[in-house]
């Protein structure tokens, strides 16, 4: 990682770039020289000093008791949260009943027809195939439950996101206020804030929908604001010269001009809401996520996969359809009349399905994939786990990885004096960003100490660092290969899609079967999850390198390796940094879930808090995860903000 995060020495002007970095380090060194002796003399020792921690378990425990005791009687719940919760339940129920009433034939037909108009024949066929596959896997009802949940959650997220984005896009002050808020919302691992939502709303759909909105609204807000700000100045001036009011300008010019960004925002929101649908199953959201989670409990990878595939299919179809709709914008508008015909056609299919008794998916048409999958997994674990000649089994690798990488890394981090960790964080964040990012990162790290979870946080950090290192090595190599070969990239694309959209819970069991219980499987799962984003961003960054620069390098007789090292990689520096940043954020999200397979540390504490209803443990660990996420994000943050999470 060090090679990437260090200021890249551009061959042309090394001196100019080096100087500010040196200056920053000098300032830090001076500050450290003054502050560190002071700190050490007062609070010695390696771990965070007790004198600087605040024990919040008392007040948090009381707060949790208060909520449980007053939830049925306090006006705050009766007149506010209760209504919010009711509205969510009613909305989800309405959509769910509508979907059931239309029946499987109707839903498939409507999906295909909408996809056809929005994105063309090929996607219409894939949409129909995807829906049929959901039925075939015996997952029709759970799929409809997830779909109902998704529709409501996405609508709510889009509404909230668009409102926030509108505010940020129209007012500079709102933009300044909202930006850090949205940044923070995006780096929060969703697992961390399930507990407070559950406490207020109870287990079930309302809590799941609200947690999803927190998770999925930021990209919509960010892209809306981006779109409004990016509107062509000349068009706006022209419209203004016509004597329009500000509102007319917004409605007739700025919003239509921002359509592409808006659609991209919707697309991102859908993807994030889907990934949340599974995590929310931990708090009883029902649907496909719950099936995955239940399968996990009986160690049934096949059943988990049968419920995971519909999620992947939904994700891929929704992604492609909204993506294609965005690209087609402005090409040829479908007239309202066509939509009407479509609606009539879909309704006809639905009614026909009803009359023919095709409402519930016929059980005879279900295919059982669980058994063959389980056999394959059993074979894999039986033959790879140990005793493979020469290379050793996966269990041996995991043990070596734990003893040679994870243990030294964790012990090293925990051995480091606390102030030196803060200094290192400050230095890294400042070198790569501004003094503001450095300050945020240091404060976030300090907050972890204050909360009294310094050691478990460093344990989690060590897992993140190890997983990021592995992810980057594999991801950069694959990304470079993909950038150099079109064929390889085409082959890779579906694989990456599946990795990216497959719910993490599905591969938690296979990684345990391969790597045993502990931190190694958590790291392995994190690598699998974070890899696609890193590969994609790397490949894209390399492909976007100015062809002229490459051409001139080639004409100078550079070999292909030299071109890569001396032209492409330095020029794609920004993309590579973004890949590192995304890798870190995604890895953290899964390492936490690794608490379910023996990852320990903060992840375990969050699961413990959820399982035992222990707000103090769960919330403190959740807050520490958030701080860790903020710190890692700032330390790896390229100077230009990304526009979306999860690439």
């Amino acid at each position, binding site marked *: 990682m060090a090679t990437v995060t260090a200021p890249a020495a551009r061959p042309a002007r090394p001196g100019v770039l080096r100087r500010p970095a040196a200056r920053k380090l000098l300032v830090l060194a001076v500050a450290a020289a003054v502050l560190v002796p002071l700190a050490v003399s007062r609070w010695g020792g390696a771990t965070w000093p007790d004198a600087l921690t605040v024990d919040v378990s008392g007040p948090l425990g009381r707060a949790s008791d208060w909520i449980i005791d007053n939830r049925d009687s306090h006006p705050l719940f009766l007149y506010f949260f*209760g209504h919010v*919760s009711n509205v969510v339940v009613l909305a989800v129920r309405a959509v769910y009943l509508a979907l059931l009433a239309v029946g499987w034939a109707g839903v498939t037909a409507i999906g295909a027809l909408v996809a056809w108009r929005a994105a063309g024949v090929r996607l219409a066929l894939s949409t129909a195939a995807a829906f049929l596959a959901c039925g075939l896997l015996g997952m029709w009802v759970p799929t409809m439950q997830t779909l109902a949940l998704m529709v409501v959650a996405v609508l709510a997220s889009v509404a909230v996101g668009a409102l926030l984005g509108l505010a940020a896009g129209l007012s500079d002050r709102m933009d300044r206020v909202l930006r850090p808020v949205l940044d923070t919302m995006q780096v929060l691992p969703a697992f961390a804030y399930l507990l407070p939502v559950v406490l207020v709303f109870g*287990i079930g759909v309302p809590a799941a929908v609200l947690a999803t909105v927190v998770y999925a609204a930021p990209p919509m807000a960010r892209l809306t604001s981006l779109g409004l700000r990016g509107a062509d100045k000349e068009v706006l001036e022209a419209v203004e010269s016509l004597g329009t009011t500000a509102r007319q300008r917004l409605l007739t010019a700025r919003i239509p001009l921002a359509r592409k960004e808006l659609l991209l925002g919707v697309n991102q929101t859908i993807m994030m809401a889907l990934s949340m649908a599974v995590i929310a199953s931990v708090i009883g959201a029902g649907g496909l996520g719950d099936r995955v989670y239940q399968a996990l409990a009986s160690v049934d990878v096949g059943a988990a996969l049968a419920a995971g595939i519909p999620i992947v299919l939904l994700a891929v179809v929704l992604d492609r359809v909204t993506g294609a709709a965005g690209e087609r914008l402005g090409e040829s508008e479908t007239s309202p009349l066509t939509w009407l015909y479509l609606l009539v056609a879909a309704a006809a299919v639905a009614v026909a399905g009803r009359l023919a008794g095709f409402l519930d998916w016929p059980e005879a048409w279900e295919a059982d994939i669980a058994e063959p999958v389980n056999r394959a997994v059993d074979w894999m674990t039986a033959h790879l786990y140990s005793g493979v000649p020469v290379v050793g089994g996966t269990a041996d690798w995991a043990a070596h990885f*734990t003893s040679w990488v994870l243990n030294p890394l964790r012990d090293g981090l925990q051995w480091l004096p606390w102030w030196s960790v803060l200094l290192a964080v400050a230095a890294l964040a400042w070198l790569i960003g501004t003094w503001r990012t450095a300050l945020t990162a240091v404060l976030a790290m300090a907050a972890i100490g204050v909360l009294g979870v310094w050691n478990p946080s460093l344990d989690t950090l060590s897992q993140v660092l190890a997983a990021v290192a592995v992810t980057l090595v594999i991801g950069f190599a694959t990304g470079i290969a993909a950038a150099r070969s079109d064929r390889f990239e085409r082959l890779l694309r579906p694989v990456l899609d599946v990795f990216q959209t497959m719910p993490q819970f599905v591969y938690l069991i296979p990684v345990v079967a391969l790597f045993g219980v502990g931190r190694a499987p958590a790291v392995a799962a994190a690598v699998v999850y974070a890899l696609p984003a890193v590969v994609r961003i790397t490949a894209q960054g390399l492909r976007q390198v100015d062809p002229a620069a490459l051409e001139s390098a080639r004409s100078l007789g550079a070999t292909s390796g030299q071109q890569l090292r001396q032209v492409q990689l330095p020029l794609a520096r920004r993309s590579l940094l973004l890949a590192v940043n995304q890798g870190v954020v995604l890895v953290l999200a899964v390492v936490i879930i690794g608490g379910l397979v023996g*990852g320990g540390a903060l992840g375990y504490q969050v699961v413990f808090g959820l399982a035992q209803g222990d707000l103090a443990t769960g919330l403190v660990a959740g807050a520490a995860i958030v701080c860790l996420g903020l710190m890692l994000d700032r330390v790896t943050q390229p100077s230009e903000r990304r526009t979306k999470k999860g690439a």
Partner: protein
Amino acid sequence: MSRKRITAAVAVLVLATGCGAADMTEQASPFANAQGARTVTLSVQSWVGAQANVAVAQYLLEHELGYRVDTVQVDEVPAWDALSQGRVDAILEDWGHPEQEQRYVRDKGTITAGGDLGVTGHIGWFVPTYFAKKHPDVTDWKNLNKYAELLRTAESGGKGQLMDGSPSYVTNDKALVDNLNLDYQVVFAGSEAAQITQIEQFAKEKKPFLTYWYTPQWLFEKVPMTEVKLPPYKEGCDADPAKVDCAYPVTPLQKYLNAGFAEDGGEAAEFLKRFRWTTEDQNEVSLMIAEQKMRPDEAAKKWVGSHESVWRKWLP
């Protein structure tokens, strides 16, 4: 115009939400009672025994009594909370949560006891029988330190590994290791699934291990395990969580119902109150689900087919 719109919007919102207080205790799942079917929502805990209870109850409710059954996977403590709020109608297997009982059953009255499940649970420390046969003295806690070296893993550092499971389980193991001066490190597998997977991998290689485990459990059929004797349980010896130095008690497992549901849940509530079977019955179904990877509904169907005399009594 805009003011009119806002007023209208507020009016619609107020109307839609019914202007009065919203009772959060009366919110069933949005997926319940769809298409005019009577629905019962059962909570499933993460272990297979609980799945077996639910599978059989679900099968009978659906096929004998004409209900539609929704299942939601929730951990034990949140399940109590969900039960109190009416999000789920019943917990079929509770391992003893005195704090929750006090709060919801006695103080608030939102949950009522549903009687014994008929199965008796016991938590303990277990080693695989092949290991216990080779070293018979490992089954006493006093000799455990001798074997710490053998039970070491990469995760447990220099100490022996005592594997614990899901964070939702009742456990005193950390305190026990401290108070009994054992040279062991408690490693939390994080979920029962992870723990089972690891136990099976160990057993495949005939490796020694020490684990927190419980009966009844189907895994015993596949990986025979012997319990390690801990200092005997005495009433109240586990009162202070930090000072526990005794074995776990024997717990008759309980059912709990949402108070409203118990009152007017009709046949379903009556059925769930009467539901009562034996450890062997439960294990039979569990084994089909977990070991033969049958779908829970198929396993239930098979069991129901061959045990009519048992379940006939449960029907109202």
